[in-house]
C-alpha cells in the first residue's frame, strides 16, 4: 500500500541491494537492524568512489590525493556535526565504535576526576557497553556504580532516579533507546535533573541514531555516542560527541601519530580537538561512507520515517500479541523500532532457528543486557528490530513464522 507521503518504502528498498537476497525459495526478511543495519547504494558508491579515486592518508600530506582525502574526511565530520546538531565539528570525534566512545569518556573524563564514594548512576536497561566501562573506572577510583530501577513495562523509574541523584553523583549514563526493549527514555528531562545535581551525562545513542532526529544542544547532553553501522553506515566506526569545554579539559585517551603537536623524549604536547582524541590513521574510507549515509538519511523526511517505523512496531505488537502463548517484553509508552517477545513453549533460540528457516533474521538472547533480563524475569528474548526499509508484509511474515514455531513446539 502506497500512502501519499514523501516517504516510499518501496523506493527505499530498491536502494539497499542486499534486500533482494533470497534464501532458498524465500525472500530475506531482515529484522535484526538493532544489531546492524544494511547499507544503501549511496554508501557503497561513496566508499567505492573514495577507494578508486581519492585514497591517501589524511592530514599533512602535501600531495593531491592526500588533500582530496583530507577534504572528504573533514566534510564528513561536518556532516556528522549537522546530524547531531553540535555547535562545532571538532566536538564530534571518530572512534572505532560506540563502545570505544564510552570507554574514552570513562577513562579520560571520569577516571582523573572520580574520588572514592563518588557515584555513577546507570539505568538498569543499559547495554553492557554502558555498564562495564563504568565498573572498570569505579574499581580504579573507588567510585560506586548505582543502578536506576525500571518498572515492569521497561520504563525508567523517574521517582527513584530523582531520589538517587545527590551531590555525590558525578556521572549519569543513559541509553537513549533501549536495544533490548525499544524504550525511548525521557533523556532531556533526565539530563536537566542530572545537571541540577551537578552531574555530567553520557547518552548512549547507539539505537537512537537510526530512528530519531538528534539535537545534542537541545538535549544539553554532555557526551553522546553513536554506532555508525546501526545508522546504515559501515562497521568499525562510532562517533563520540562531547561539549568542547569538557573535551578540552580531558587528557588524550590513546597516544600516537596525528594527535600530537610536538614530540620529544623529554615529553610531548598534544594537538587540539578533534585530533587529540584520534591517534593513528582513522577509517578514512569508512568515514567518507558515513558522511554520504548521513546526508542521505537527513535528506529523507525523518518524521515520515519515524511514523513508518512506529507503525511497523504497532503492527508487530498487535499481530504477535494475538498469538496465544506469545508475551511481549517491554511495554513502554514511548517505544521505537524494537519488539522483544518470549513464548510459553519455545526458547528464544529455537524461535530464532525456526524463523531463520523461513528466511527471517531476528536476534535471540540477552542482547548484552543481562540486568534487564534479570529484572524482567526472563533468561532471554526473541527480538525483531526494524529499519526504515521494513514493510507490513515483513511483519506479517514474522507473525506467520511465529505461528510455525507454535506448530512445532505447541
Amino acid at each position, binding site marked *: 500500500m502506497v500512502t501519499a507521503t514523501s516517504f516510499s518504502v518501496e523506493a527505499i528498498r530498491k536502494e539497499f541491494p542486499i534486500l533482494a537476497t533470497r534464501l*532458498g525459495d524465500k525472500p530475506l526478511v531482515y529484522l535484526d537492524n538493532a544489531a546492524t543495519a544494511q547499507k544503501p547504494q549511496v554508501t557503497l558508491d561513496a566508499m567505492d568512489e573514495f577507494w578508486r579515486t581519492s585514497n591517501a592518508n589524511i592530514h599533512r600530506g602535501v600531495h593531491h590525493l592526500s588533500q582530496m582525502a583530507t577534504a572528504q574526511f573533514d566534510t564528513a565530520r561536518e556532516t556528522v556535526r549537522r546530524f547531531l546538531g553540535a555547535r562545532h565539528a571538532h566536538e564530534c570525534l571518530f572512534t572505532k565504535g560506540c563502545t570505544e566512545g564510552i570507554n574514552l569518556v570513562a577513562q579520560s573524563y571520569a577516571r582523573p576526576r572520580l574520588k572514592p564514594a563518588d557515584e555513577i548512576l546507570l539505568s538498569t536497561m543499559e547495554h553492557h557497553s554502558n555498564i562495564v566501562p563504568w565498573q572498570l573506572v569505579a574499581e580504579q577510583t573507588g567510585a560506586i556504580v548505582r543502578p536506576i530501577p525500571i518498572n515492569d513495562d521497561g520504563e525508567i523509574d523517574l521517582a527513584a532516579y530523582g531520589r538517587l541523584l545527590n551531590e555525590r553523583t558525578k556521572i549519569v549514563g543513559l541509553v537513549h533507546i533501549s536495544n533490548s526493549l525499544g524504550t525511548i527514555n525521557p533523556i532531556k528531562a533526565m539530563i536537566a535533573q542530572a545537571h541540577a545535581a551537578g552531574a555530567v551525562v553520557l547518552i548512549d545513542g547507539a539505537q537512537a541514531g537510526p530512528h530519531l532526529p538528534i539535537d545534542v544542544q537541545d538535549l544539553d547532553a554532555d557526551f553522546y555516542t553513536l554506532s555508525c553501522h546501526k545508522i546504515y553506515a559501515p562497521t568499525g566506526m562510532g562517533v563520540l560527541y562531547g561539549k568542547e569545554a569538557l573535551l578540552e579539559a580531558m587528557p588524550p585517551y590513546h597516544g600516537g601519530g596525528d594527535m600530537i603537536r610536538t614530540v620529544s623524549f623529554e615529553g610531548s604536547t598534544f594537538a587540539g580537538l578533534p585530533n587529540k582524541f584520534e591517534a593513528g590513521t582513522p577509517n578514512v574510507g569508512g568515514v567518507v561512507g558515513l558522511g554520504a549515509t548521513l546526508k542521505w538519511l537527513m535528506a529523507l523526511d525523518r518524521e515520515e520515517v519515524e511514523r513508518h517505523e512506529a507503525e511497523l512496531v504497532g503492527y508487530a505488537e498487535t499481530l504477535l500479541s494475538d498469538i496465544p502463548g506469545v508475551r511481549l517484553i517491554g511495554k513502554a509508552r514511548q517505544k521505537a523500532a524494537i519488539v522483544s517477545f518470549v513464548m510459553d*513453549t*519455545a*526458547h*528464544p*533460540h*529455537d524461535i530464532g*532457528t*525456526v524463523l531463520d*528457516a523461513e528466511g527471517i533474521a531476528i536476534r*535471540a*538472547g*540477552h542482547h548484552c543486557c*543481562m540486568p534487564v*533480563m534479570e529484572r524482567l524475569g526472563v*533468561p*532471554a528474548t526473541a527480538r525483531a528490530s526494524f529499519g526504515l526499509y521494513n514493510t507490513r508484509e515483513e511483519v506479517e511474515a514474522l507473525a506467520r513464522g511465529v505461528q*510455525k514455531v507454535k*506448530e*512445532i*513446539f*505447541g
Partner: protein
Amino acid sequence: MSFDLRELYQEIILDHYRHPRNQREPERATAHSEGHNPLCGDKITVSVRTENGQLAEVGYHASGCAISVASASLMSEAVKGKPLGEVERLCKEFQGAVTSPDGGEFPEMGDLNALAGVREHPVRIKCATLPWHALRAALSGVDKMVTTE
C-alpha cells in the same frame, strides 16, 4: 516446515525438551558442576553420585533451549549406571560426533542420534555440548563454572 528443521527438531528432541528425564538433584550427590553458555544465557547444573567406579546417579537442572535441555535429558539416560570409563568414552564420542564437520557419519549412539541434526546448525552445536561439558567437569572434580567459550 522445511526438511532442515525436521532434522533438527525431531519428535524425540521435542519430547525430551517438554519432559526432561532425570531433571532432579540426585540423593547423596558426590559432585556438581555448572555449565553456562554466555552467548545465549543457557545454564545447567549437573550433579552426580559415583559409587565403585560407576556413575550411580546423574541429575541436572537445565534452563535453556530445546536442544540444550533435550541433550541434557538424553545424556542422563545414556550415561546413568555406566562405568566411569565408559561414560568418559561416551562423552568424547558424542562431543566429537556433533562437532565434526558436516557430512561425516554420525556414530550409532541410540537415542543420542536424534541430536545429529545440530551439525547443520553451527551456532547451535554449543547448545548440544553444554550439558556434556558440565558432566565431564563434575566427574573430573572441577567444582566451578564451565562455559562453552
